[in-house]
């Protein structure tokens, strides 16, 4: 398969809401690699047990990696310069 199947950041909303206190699909993040700024909803999501990867929709650089194990979540966000979250 030349292009792996992906969903988008909308589909990661549930898993990310387990570790964030607020919605992340509407949060704008800047990609470390290409500088693009976009809501996480626009990212490409590859979900394979036991984790998910959100990649930049422009350059496919990994922005967020989340892996869950027994009682812990590992969150790797080094692909983001920042994430601007809405706080109600």
């Amino acid at each position, binding site marked *: 398969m030349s292009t792996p199947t992906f969903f988008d950041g909308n589909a990661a909303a549930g898993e990310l*809401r387990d570790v964030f206190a607020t919605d992340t699909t509407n949060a704008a993040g800047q990609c470390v690699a290409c500088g693009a700024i976009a809501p996480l909803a626009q990212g490409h999501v590859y979900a394979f047990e036991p984790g998910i990867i959100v990649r930049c929709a422009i350059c496919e650089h990994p922005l967020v990696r989340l892996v869950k194990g027994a009682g812990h979540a590992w969150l790797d966000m080094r692909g983001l310069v920042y994430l601007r979250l809405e706080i109600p």
Partner: protein
Amino acid sequence: MARTTLLGRVAWYVAAVIERRDESETARTLVLKVPQWPGHNAGQHVDVRLTAADGYTAVRSYSIANATQGDLLELTVEQVPDGEVSPYLARTLSPGDPLEIRGPLGGWFVWHPVALEPVQLVAGGSGIVPLMAMIRTRAQAHSRAPFRLIYSVRSPGATMYAGELRRRALEDDGLAIAYVYTRATPPDWPRPTQRINATTIAESVFPAGQNPACFVCGPTAFVEAASGFLKEAGYNPTRIKTERFGPSGGTS
């Protein structure tokens, strides 16, 4: 609405299936009763979790089809051949059965009825589901926001909500619906089967000058193509919100 869920974790609920109805040749709507459901916004989705006897779990996202209505939730499930989850949801699950769901989820691919601007909806196949929630929410809120929908679908028999869309096109003031059939058309349809293209887009959408809010939902390839045509038609890319799902199932 759903303001209470903006902070803190989103709960898993045990919903009960109270009704099941055929929505097309391959899609079924499940009506769920969800005690303590906080309400939802049009365009949001839920995660559905199935757990096998040996503890194996599978989680999939499904768009919510109905306008918020107390503790009732409607999911329309397109059965994916060889799917791990959708055949169970569409065929096996029956009234009275429990179903674990988490939500409401997503704050970006959402339409709020306070908005008055024109709204352009573009659906590919089962991508109609969250857009249907927007059309229903618009009617429920007596919104005057002008709405246009382009619905690309395989055939008349694969059309979801066919009767309701026909009725709403006549009764809902300010709602216009255009269809594109990709494999088989209704009898006497003036067009051949075709995929959505620059011409079908140009004929049906709001002029770019009206700067509509735009929601595109469907399989990945459809969403990429349709949003490309919208940009060619002069749409501002920052006004186009997309939700895509892969051929293996996922969101709706």
